[in-house]
């Protein structure tokens, strides 16, 4: 018997709409949900690899409690009751001594985090934090400090753009299905694509202009570009006059940063910079400067992203076809939105452990900042943090310096991992609660923004293959056992869906036909009437006084990146289109496509070091040393070396991936504390390593 279920993928954080075929209780087919016209039946390799993952025995199969030292890999399998008892007993002791605020949780954010936020609020702690310090924080805050809204406040109309400018945004490899389809439509329609990256990626192969800048000089290049655009009035004067504040200050600040200056700093000639500026002038307003996604790279990345935001404003591309468009919300379709599961839970009055509501209050405290929470665990200030829930998040591979992280984690009384994988962090936890895979679980409803706003539903397609539970059940059960059941009084997922939908006219059964509900029949178009910014002035603030009052300057004078010490290289990382960071390297099928990572090194440097393509080399930074195969290439800047992220796992239960390649973050010694204080993003490209032929 064959059934078809509309759902939402969970193999990466993009969460594409899908259709799943199930035959005799087994998943046989996963494709895009063609009811979403941007998807069609298209879907990526990772989504298809959810089928072998579903039936893999190298994932947690039942709750496990540590039966040896942390990280020893000695586990005792227990029942869910025993697991819950273990957690609640420990939590009750911690709460009695330190209060509920000493509990924190991290996850990877996204549309389903509302459930975890509600759980944290229900048990009385303000310490919900997501992964974003290693992802889009700088870009988010850069957008907030100029436009007064987060980075997802705009959608990019790539398919209609005349010019797409990507600073390291590897849009064809670190891709979202709908976004990359839009990008390729733009390419097919003849859009210019300018791609800037010290390494040639697949995206460079789609570009009409590729700039290999010196690593760490994005900000310099952007200063040179903006200088020339402002000095020569190659911008939308009408838009800027109407909507932007601080042009005179910007112009004054940019004065020394001529294209000639930028050429010296970046290695891109001034003629090329000028030609680019004239090209975008001709192409605007249909010009998109991507403000960055995983833009947690250098110590001035916030300012690079801020300049990208300013360039968008100069192009006058707000709410323009081929530019930056407001994703329409249920409100635009005259509908209420989903009710937050936190809505009826009393506010938590305690301050946050990461101080994003006090010392760092220009940061968006909805996402928090994990590196600051680590400080709290380490120092006990502003107060002790003793319990940490890690929900399908893997800080030991995402954040720098796992050794340092483990030293800090050792100060916890309880480390709980809720995961579908044996991640580096779950392997270090006190207890692993196996969450059902996305094919096995229902999830809370999500809001879909866009021309036709609406909601969509992830449905359980098959029964759990092992003794796992869906996330909603785990947190509802734990709240109940901690005496907070009144705040999460749900007996079933339907109870949760009904709660979420209570202010709308939508019913649960409305989702059965296509997995989604649209709140209007025809797309809501763009209109200048929609233009509105979230800043205090209601304008785009090149100079943001609110942030300046907190000590965050609007324009940061440029400082050259540190040159690699003699014999060292700047360590860069990235990913492939058939890989989800560290989550997929042990996948039964994806591991056949990509078994290990390699170290990319420039031909000239390899020659100096006596390294040939395919040689094993030793990479080191201080006490961290490892071996990896070298890939010698002309297509990386000579100052840098590169490895794909997510390899080199030390978790033996990941038998296919164990010991294959190296983990870039393990070389980032001391970098947990060395980050961009203005934007909050970690500086993941500020590490130097030495390379030599293996003995």
């Amino acid at each position, binding site marked *: 018997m064959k059934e078809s279920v509309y759902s939402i993928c969970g193999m990466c954080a993009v969460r594409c709409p899908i259709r799943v075929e199930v035959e005799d209780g087994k998943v046989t087919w996963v494709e895009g949900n063609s009811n979403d016209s941007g998807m069609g039946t298209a879907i*990526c390799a990772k989504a298809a690899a959810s089928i072998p993952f579903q039936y893999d025995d190298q994932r947690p199969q039942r709750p496990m409690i540590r039966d040896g030292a942390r990280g020893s890999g000695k586990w005792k399998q227990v029942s869910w009751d025993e697991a819950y008892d273990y957690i609640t007993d420990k939590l009750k002791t911690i709460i009695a001594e330190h209060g509920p605020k000493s509990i924190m949780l991290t996850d990877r954010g996204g549309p389903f985090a509302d459930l975890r936020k509600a759980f944290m609020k229900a048990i009385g702690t303000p310490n919900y934090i997501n992964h974003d310090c290693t992802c889009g924080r700088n870009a988010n805050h850069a957008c907030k400090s100029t436009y007064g809204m987060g980075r997802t406040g705009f959608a990019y109309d790539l398919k209609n753009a005349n010019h797409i400018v990507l600073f390291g945004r590897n849009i064809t490899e670190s891709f979202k299905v709908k976004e990359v389809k839009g990008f390729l439509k733009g390419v097919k329609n003849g859009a210019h694509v300018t791609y800037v990256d010290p390494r040639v990626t697949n995206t460079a192969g789609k570009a009409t202009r590729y700039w290999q800048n010196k690593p760490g000089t994005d900000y310099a290049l952007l200063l040179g570009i903006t200088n020339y655009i402002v000095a020569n009035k190659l911008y939308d004067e009408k838009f800027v006059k109407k909507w932007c504040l601080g042009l005179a200050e910007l112009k004054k600040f940019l004065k020394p940063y001529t294209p000639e200056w930028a050429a010296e700093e970046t290695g891109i000639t001034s003629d090329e910079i000028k030609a680019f500026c004239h090209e975008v002038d001709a192409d605007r307003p249909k010009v998109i400067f991507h403000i960055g996604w995983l833009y947690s790279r250098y110590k001035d990345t916030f300012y690079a992203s801020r300049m990208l935001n300013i360039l968008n404003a100069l192009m006058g591309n707000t709410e323009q076809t081929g530019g930056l468009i407001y994703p329409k919300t249920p409100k635009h379709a005259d509908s209420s939105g989903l009710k937050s599961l936190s809505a009826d839970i009393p506010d938590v009055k305690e301050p946050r452990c990461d101080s994003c509501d006090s010392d760092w209050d220009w940061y968006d405290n909805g996402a928090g900042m994990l590196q600051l929470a680590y400080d709290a665990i380490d120092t006990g200030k502003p107060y002790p943090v003793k319990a940490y829930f890690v929900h399908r998040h893997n800080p030991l591979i995402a954040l720098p310096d796992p050794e340092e992280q483990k030293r800090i984690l050792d100060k916890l009384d309880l480390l709980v991992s809720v995961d579908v994988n044996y991640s580096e962090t779950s392997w270090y936890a006190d207890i692993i609660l196996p969450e059902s895979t996305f094919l096995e679980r229902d999830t809370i409803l999500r809001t879909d923004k866009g021309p036709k706003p609406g909601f969509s539903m992830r449905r359980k397609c098959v029964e759990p293959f092992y003794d796992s539970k869906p996330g909603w059940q785990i947190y509802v059960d734990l709240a109940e056992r901690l005496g907070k059941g009144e705040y999460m009084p749900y007996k079933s997922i339907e109870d949760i869906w009904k709660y979420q939908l209570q202010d709308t006219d939508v019913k649960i059964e409305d989702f059965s036909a296509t997995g989604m509900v649209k709140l209007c029949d025809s797309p809501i178009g763009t209109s200048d009437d929609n233009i509105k910014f979230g800043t205090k002035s209601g304008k785009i603030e090149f100079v943001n006084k609110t942030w300046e009052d907190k000590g965050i300057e609007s324009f940061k004078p440029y400082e050259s990146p540190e040159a690699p010490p003699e014999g060292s290289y700047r360590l860069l990382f990235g990913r492939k289109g058939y890989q989800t960071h560290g989550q997929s390297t042990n996948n039964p099928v994806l591991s056949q496509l990509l078994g290990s990572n390699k170290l990319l090194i420039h031909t000239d440097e390899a020659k100096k070091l006596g390294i040939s393509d395919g040689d094993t080399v030793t990479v080191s930074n201080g006490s961290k040393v490892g071996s990896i195969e070298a890939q010698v290439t002309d297509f990386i800047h000579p100052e840098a070396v590169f490895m794909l992220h997510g390899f080199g796992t030390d978790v033996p239960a990941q038998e296919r991936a164990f010991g294959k390649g190296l983990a870039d973050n393990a070389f980032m010694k001391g970098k947990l504390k060395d980050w961009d204080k203005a934007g909050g993003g970690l500086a993941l490209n500020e590490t130097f390593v030495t390379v030599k032929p293996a003995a």
Partner: protein
Amino acid sequence: MSKYYVTQDVEQCIGCKACEVHCKTKNNSGEGAFFCKIMQVGPEMKNNLPVLDFVYMACFHCENPWCVDACPTGAMQRRDKDGIVFVDQTNCVGCKACMDACPWGVPQWDVETGKVDKCDLCMDRIDEGLEPACVSKCTTGCLSFGTPEQASDQKRQDFAERILSQKA
């Protein structure tokens, strides 16, 4: 040539290998066996730009297949009604003669069964009026499935439209 034709718009391919995994998960090819594969060529610098392409390689389903001629047991066959070349697993003895014979490395060795298997254009899907897995779920839509006549018409149409857009 079978009556079907899979074409690839190389400019729209991003090398994401979704086709390989769609094929593997549909056809359960053995470990390391890929009925279709994306072959990367480049990068190399041309006119100051890095050029790199991804070329889709599956089976051409030849009119006079070398593999069928080479097969001593009749396991490798050509379907009468549409020319799809496929392996009847019950008759394959794992001699690898087809692998030697095929100029394009199409027949794949299955370490688990000790036999050869290959792309059959997902003929079970074709018989249901569907497209092969690789085409149906291609991330970017760069793969197309049809007949040679359709592909030729499409090419002419694309060319004609480019002339129009240049005029505009």
